[in-house]
């Protein structure tokens, strides 16, 4: 009897102790300190089976040669899922991560998850609409990161830039700056990735599990929409074309390896 009464009161006490002085993160900070994470998503910028090297020449499905000078994308609203029990653990929605092919320190997204076995991960490629209309942000959302449109407020959710002899634009450049967070041309896409058959990410306190995810540039150019550099070298405003490109790149991810 006593215990039944005490338990909820103790919870209140503990909550009072922990909540009272907690710092508020204005949607941008990374509350996970590097030494506190127990799970990491390790993104590998790639072109099919090759690791992406900036300024090297590759070929897309249409036979067009191209090189990449910038490849960046936002990841947010990460869910870890166990399909056996349908348990879902949602990482703090206020975390936004910019993965930038030019900066390998950004490839590893460090997270703190509830200890469990997971075999599926889901995330949004991009930055949710609320954060697009909430004024000045910092951390990975700092406009200095070059992923914010200053004349038509909003984040560029994913960016692919480079050169291609197939491009009809000035200096053979091609530029895909994909954004738009509202209405029918919203480019926010949820990506759900099942792990390789039979593999689980074992999240335990005090150790870290790493989920390696390939991000394949060549996936930008097809499925479900054909994107030929020759036909469309520049997409840099929100609209139906940006939406189509987002439907392609949301399929660029594959979980290649789990290490516990």
């Amino acid at each position, binding site marked *: *009897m*006593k215990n039944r*009464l*005490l338990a909820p*009161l*103790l919870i*209140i*006490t*503990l909550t*009072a*102790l922990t909540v*009272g*002085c907690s710092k508020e993160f*204005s949607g*941008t900070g990374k509350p996970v300190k590097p030494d506190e994470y127990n799970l990491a998503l390790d993104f590998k910028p790639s072109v099919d089976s090759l690791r992406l090297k900036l300024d090297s020449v590759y070929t897309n499905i249409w036979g067009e040669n191209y090189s990449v000078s910038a490849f960046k994308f936002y990841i947010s609203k990460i869910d870890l899922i166990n399909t056996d029990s349908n348990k879902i653990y949602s990482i703090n929605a206020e975390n936004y991560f910019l993965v930038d092919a030019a900066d390998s320190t950004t490839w590893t997204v460090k997270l703190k998850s509830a200890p469990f076995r997971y075999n599926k991960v889901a995330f949004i490629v991009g930055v949710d609409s609320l954060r*697009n*209309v*909430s*004024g*000045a*942000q*910092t951390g990975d959302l*700092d*406009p*200095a990161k070059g992923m*914010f449109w*200053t*004349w*038509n*407020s*909003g984040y560029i959710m994913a960016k692919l830039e480079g050169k291609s002899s197939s491009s009809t634009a000035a200096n053979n450049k091609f530029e895909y700056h994909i954004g738009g967070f509202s209405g029918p*041309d919203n480019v926010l896409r949820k990506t759900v990735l099942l792990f390789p058959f039979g593999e689980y990410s074992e999240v335990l306190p005090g150790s870290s599990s790493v989920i390696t995810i390939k991000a394949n540039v060549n996936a930008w150019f097809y499925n479900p929409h054909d994107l030929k550099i020759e036909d469309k070298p520049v997409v840099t*405003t*929100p*609209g139906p074309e940006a939406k189509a490109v987002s439907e392609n790149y949301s399929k660029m991810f594959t979980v290649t390896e789990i290490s516990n």
Partner: protein
Amino acid sequence: MKKTGVTITGLVVLIALCVNINSCRKSDARKGPSSLTFNIPAGFPAPAYDFTSNPLTQEGFNLGKKLFYDGRLSKDGNFPCGSCHQQFAAFATFDHDLSHGFNDQFTTRNAPGLYNLAWHKAMHWDGGINHIENQPLAPITAPNEMAEDITNVISKLKADEEYKRMFVAAFGDDEINSQRMLKSLTQFMLMLVSADSKYDRVKKGTATFTAAEQSGYVIFQSKCASCHKEPLFTDLSYRNNGLVISNFLQDFGRMRITNKKEDSLKFKVPSLRNIELTFPYMHDGRFYTIDQVLNHYATGVQNSATLDPLLQNRIALSTTERLNMRAFLKTLTDSSFVKDSRFAE
């Protein structure tokens, strides 16, 4: 037994809360910035800006003002915000249709006056900027305006000892980043409240209109006030007021933002406050006098698919009505605002 349990636990909760309060107080003991009050003028609606996300402080405002007048926010040092937004012109560019920017270039639109911005839900003539805090990024990075890069601006600020001191005063530590720069600039912009014109004093009962001003006010209310709605003198909507499109600028207004045909040629309704000081008029500054504007509404309005329905029949005024209208519009000049030393460089 049950009672004792509850009491003991209650005590534990109390102690926990006390410990908590004390631990918080310790960090608050350091002298922080002093808060600044935002006064909503009588008769004004609730501001659109959420002040809880950026509480106004004297130190934040001071920092914002320094940034506003600092040329280092531009590439070559010559174009602070204040170069196009001049206080004596109610923070528009005096006597310029378009303003000057980096490398002898012109802007593509007329610089609007800056006042009563706390009530604006979106910035720019086309409403493309959805939050005032992000507004400064547009002129800072536009190649024909300040032409600078955000990372460069932040490095310049970081290299300056006085900025370090001012960021500490405003935010508690010496971290200098774009978010803090933008929030302090916003504090300065929010404080630019213009509500002390003769019109405002008449509303308060401390002044009276002349006969001409009063007649002008009556005409204004019947013919202009549905778009230039009191007390902001704009309803903040986007409308096509029938201007002939400029072949050179090819500016379709809000359609560029929304991608919607029905927004073609629509621009934000400008406030008429301080109209005497903010000439030339319209999004491209094509009219230099109030008379030219009145001529446009009387005979110049062009029909098009998106023309505002309120202008279908034009707005004709007699000669006397025009005189009275001009007299009334001049009562919207806020001479204390344009001389307010708090906002001066």
